């Protein structure tokens, strides 16, 4: 498969601060790539570099096998959607959509045809003669997407496009963006700090921290097999449970030991040898802890319910167990009052073991 966007050894520094360092990234044709990270990790900076709005200190950017490192933004074949919509306030929606085309002196009929198509796809025909001030947030963002759409670009860049919308609108527009990607099949690069957006939209997610990509994988791999402790703690809400302890051996099989209790690691897919005595962190997602009723395999332990948070569809329990506080997600129908004791076990096939020193997955 061809690469749509390739980034080679990209570095960017503002004075003494290195925002990006030797970053390499290949994005396939038609792929939906999400750049995910907390604020200040360099994800928006990377997007601005791809767009040509920031000049990299070093490195190269290729779009459609063309070196665009020194090209102007308009010559890169990209369209960009901003968090603040960035609609020109004094122009009507139609003028907003056609601005880029008018600047490029595209013939009038051609402009009208492209606007009609974009308005049709995004269902904004009734809004064409309104000013941005007369639109709701969701409508504004649709127009902003339309502005990229009319320009017939190869690559769409989204810079946190849904962050300014309320929760309901955000989930609606999220689905629309996904539908748009399915019908257009363009390459899309999407920056967000929202893990739900990342997991639901992405073909692949690149998780960034301090200008370095921590893991680049499909959402399921990121979720189930995080490569290091940072990725494991960043993805998932509520966050993964981390138990500090060490590896040991019992009856010739590796076990995890913490505060005097041991867990068999049967079923854990390991990349390296599980040497006894190694200090490790065991990571288990709240939904991978089983309580009572359906206990089978693995070790069984006692725990005390501290707080219960019913959320309708499911029920979140905060437990005290062997010196750790743990969160457990169970079905919404099962209720436990604080103080009640219950028995739990872990599903080791989807657990993660990290080295305590390097914080890398073992």
């Amino acid at each position, binding site marked *: 498969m061809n690469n749509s966007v390739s980034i080679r050894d990209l570095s960017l520094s503002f004075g003494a601060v290195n925002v990006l360092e030797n970053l390499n990234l290949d994005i396939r044709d038609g792929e939906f790539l999400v750049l995910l990270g907390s604020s200040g990790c360099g994800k928006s900076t990377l997007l601005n570099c791809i767009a040509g709005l920031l000049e990299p200190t070093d490195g190269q950017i290729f779009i459609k096998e063309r070196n665009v490192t020194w090209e*102007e*933004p*308009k010559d890169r074949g990209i369209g960009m959607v901003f968090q603040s919509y*960035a609609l020109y306030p*004094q122009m009507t929606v139609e003028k907003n959509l056609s601005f*880029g085309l008018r600047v490029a002196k595209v013939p009038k009929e051609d402009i009208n045809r492209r606007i009609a198509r974009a308005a049709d796809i995004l269902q904004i025909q009734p809004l064409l003669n309104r000013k941005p*001030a007369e639109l709701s947030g969701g409508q504004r963002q649709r127009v902003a997407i339309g502005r990229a759409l009319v320009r017939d670009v190869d690559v769409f860049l989204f810079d946190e496009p849904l962050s300014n919308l309320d929760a309901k609108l955000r989930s609606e527009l999220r689905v629309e963006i996904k539908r748009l990607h399915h019908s257009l099949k363009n390459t899309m690069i999407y920056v967000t700090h929202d893990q739900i957006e990342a997991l639901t939209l992405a073909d692949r997610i690149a998780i960034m921290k301090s200008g370095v990509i921590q893991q680049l994988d499909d959402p399921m791999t990121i979720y189930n097999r995080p490569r290091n402790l940072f990725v494991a703690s960043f993805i998932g809400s509520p966050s993964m449970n981390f138990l500090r302890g060490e590896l040991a051996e019992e009856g010739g099989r590796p076990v995890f030991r913490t505060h005097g209790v041991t867990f068999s690691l049967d079923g854990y897919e390991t990349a390296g040898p599980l040497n006894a005595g190694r200090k490790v962190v065991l990571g288990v997602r709240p939904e991978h802890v089983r309580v009572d009723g359906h206990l089978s395999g693995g070790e069984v332990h006692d725990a005390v319910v501290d707080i219960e948070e019913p959320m309708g569809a499911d029920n979140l329990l905060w437990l005290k167990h062997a010196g750790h506080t743990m969160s457990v997600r169970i079905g919404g129908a099962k209720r436990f009052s604080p103080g009640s004791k219950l028995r739990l076990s872990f599903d080791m096939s989807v657990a993660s073991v990290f080295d305590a020193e390097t914080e890398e997955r073992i």
Partner: protein
Amino acid sequence: MANISSLNAPVTGLDAVSDRIADQVATGPRGRKPKRVMSARNIMLYGTLAVAALYYLLPLYVMVVTSLKGMPEVRMGNIFSPPMEITFEPWVKAWAQACTGLNCDGLSRGFWNSVRILIPSVVVSIAVASVSGYALANWRFKGSELFFSILIIGAFIPYQVMIYPVVIALRELGVYGTLTGLVIVHTIFGMPILTLLFRNYFTSLPVELFKAARIDGAGFWQIYFRIMLPMALPIFVVAMILQVTGIWNDFLFGVVFTRPDTYPMTVQLNNIVNSVQGVKEYNVNMAATLLTGAIPLVVYFISGRLFVRGIAAGAVKG
């Protein structure tokens, strides 16, 4: 049925409470708390405002009244009393007949000189400052911060320090003593504060607009004229008010950089009022001063409203 009765339970509880407050419902406080008109705060506030207004309006009143009196009435010395016989003679004289030196065509000459100085100075200085403010805000170049700092320092240096060098520079350029020279001087000296004004305004606009326009393929001038300029109307009005009042009221540059036949209105006013020969015609002096001060006042009253409207429009557009 058990559910329904349990739902009713709290309602009976409410009834019990409402019995206890029943007598207060009809008579007690309700809705917005009334505010006293003659509170200590209001007396202080309006008292201060009234005193301040009186302080500024009284001299104005004396000027208007005096300018409408004939000289015999002025000599009676009752400066606060209204004119017994209203005459517009002093106004006509101030405008068309008052003498400065050899010219006896009144303030009208100075008025037209001032207009010829004002219009190009305001247009050129605002045009240059808005473009440089836009460039400094959006098109950062190497050394742009340093350039901006130097410009700001320029705003703090007293004009008087620079007069002699500027005279020499204008002489070398061959425009000393002409209106062109004075326009150049006004444009240059308006630059620091105006550029600061425009740069700060353009910096306050969302940077994404600029980025979006660049992705749409617009260049330096297209972004300026088609994106930035339509959004900058309020700040243009502010700059215009600043420049019109500043340049119209200027005396120093006018007296230094022009010749008697090109003197602006302020300089001519000074020459009329301070002439030491003959009788002091207070009524003519008052009329002349009011005429000279009228332009900034009119500009402020007209564009001040526009200015407020511009700000309000910007706020709605968001």
